[in-house]
């Protein structure tokens, strides 16, 4: 490897590390950022697992573990995805404050910014998921799946986090303003809630059933719950769809980076 390539590669990782560290530091030292990110999944978990626990006695409701575990499957995906979306907010704020433009000028390989933001999104989601998991276990969540099943479930959550982070990055880098928040949040929110959130897919009715049938999140959610219940279902389609979305989101994020580069030129 030539000296130039080594320098470039070293520069890549140092930029990625710096961007990631700055974001993670801001996240853990700013209550206004950390609290909403933690509160919303907790609200959903408490409201659904506590308020709807009787729903698992509806005829046709089939799941191997208890309703707390069923809801956890959704909240895990939600917390992972929103960890990514909220990182999009941070990127928009970095553009508003001028930090991102300075990094764009200084970084030898600018794709490192996306990697850095992605790593930060992963840390944020990991923290939220750890808290939600602890609460779910205290609340009596049954885990029927084995170690390999759980690995599959958390890998799907990791993919969801990456897809959302890359989607948010693409939007934030194109629009470069905090006012783009709804453009990042609403599509992810809609995709999540147009999946079988409270009951299995077979019990959905009306237009929500039709929407869930074509919603890629349905596959991720059903596969994740299958892992948790020790009865893996739709594993290959879920991973194929997840990886497909990841590729699309990466292309979208790189397009956003090019747009930001053009605006800074």
């Amino acid at each position, binding site marked *: 490897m030539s000296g130039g390539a080594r320098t470039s590669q070293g520069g890549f990782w140092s930029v990625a590390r710096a961007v990631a560290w700055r974001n993670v530091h801001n996240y853990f030292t700013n209550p*206004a950022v950390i*609290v*909403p990110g933690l*509160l*919303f999944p907790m*609200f*959903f978990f*408490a*409201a*659904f*697992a*506590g*308020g*709807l*626990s*009787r*729903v698992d*006695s*509806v*005829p*046709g*409701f089939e799941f191997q573990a208890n309703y707390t575990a069923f809801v956890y499957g959704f909240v895990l995906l939600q917390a992972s995805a929103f960890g990514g979306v909220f990182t999009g907010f941070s990127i928009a704020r970095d553009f508003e404050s001028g930090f991102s433009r300075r990094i764009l000028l200084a970084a030898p390989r600018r794709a490192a910014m996306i990697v850095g933001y992605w790593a930060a999104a992963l840390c944020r989601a990991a923290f939220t998921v750890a808290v939600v998991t602890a609460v779910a276990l205290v609340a009596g969540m049954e885990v029927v799946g084995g170690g390999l099943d759980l690995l599959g479930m958390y890998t799907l959550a990791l993919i969801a986090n990456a897809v959302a982070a890359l989607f948010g990055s693409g939007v934030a880098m194109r629009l470069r303003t905090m006012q783009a928040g709804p453009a990042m949040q609403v599509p992810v929110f*809609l995709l999540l*809630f*147009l999946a*079988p*959130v*409270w*009951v299995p897919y077979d*019990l*959905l*009715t*009306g*237009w*929500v*059933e039709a929407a869930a049938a074509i919603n890629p999140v349905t596959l991720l959610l059903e596969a994740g719950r299958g892992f948790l219940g020790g009865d893996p279902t739709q594993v290959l389609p879920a991973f194929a769809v997840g990886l497909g979305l990841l590729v699309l989101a990466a292309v979208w994020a790189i397009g956003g980076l090019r747009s930001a580069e053009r605006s800074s030129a």
Partner: protein
Amino acid sequence: MSAAFATQVGMLARRSVLRTLRQPAMVVPALLFPLMLLAVNSGGLQAATELPGFPADSYLDFVLAVCFVQGGLFAANSAGTNVSNDVETGFLSRLSLTPLRRVALLAGQLAGIVTLGLIQALTFLIVGLTAGAGIETGAAGALAIVVLALLISLGFGAIGAFVALRTGSGEAVQGVFPLMFAALFLSSMALPRDLIETDWFRTIATWNPVSYMLEGFRALIIQGWDGEALALGFACAGGVALAAIVGASSALRTRMTRT
């Protein structure tokens, strides 16, 4: 009410109504998000109507009540944001130099939120009826629903104004929003209280006044003229409104003194 007082309230109310309606960012989410939740819940949880003892055949009828209370939460946010903006820009400081009465100021500030509440209530009713919901108590019940929704908007709006006047900060108002959201989520929003299986959740829902507001709406939509549910619903909404208005008035007095 003296003519001068009426003029004061009228002018401030006009300003408040215009300011609220001229901000699409304030009006659109306050209409859109409750309707989104209504659409998703009514299809996603229809299966819950098969639970023994569930009070309705259609989950849409059951969940329509949530829109009115969720709309009230947005009222709190809107009122708080407007009032904190008046504090931050110095509008309140300038008003304190005039002989304006405190009650007129508060009433005027809340008029915009009550107007937004009226638009929300009518929209939710029309969308609900168009989507197939029925109102057991008929036209008179629909009127009672609107009145209860306005009372809730007034109460939650006054809470937003109270926070804004106490802190003078828009960020503090935004920070309170998740707590208000929690009040909705930890209620009988998704299932009737007697069908909630988890003990701690049922206890919180029973102590939570939002549950009784929801049950007041549900009585009108599903059951008919249930005096007890209506009395509790109106009492909780009225109690919250009264406490919040007293708190906001006291905070306004303190702020005007500081000014």
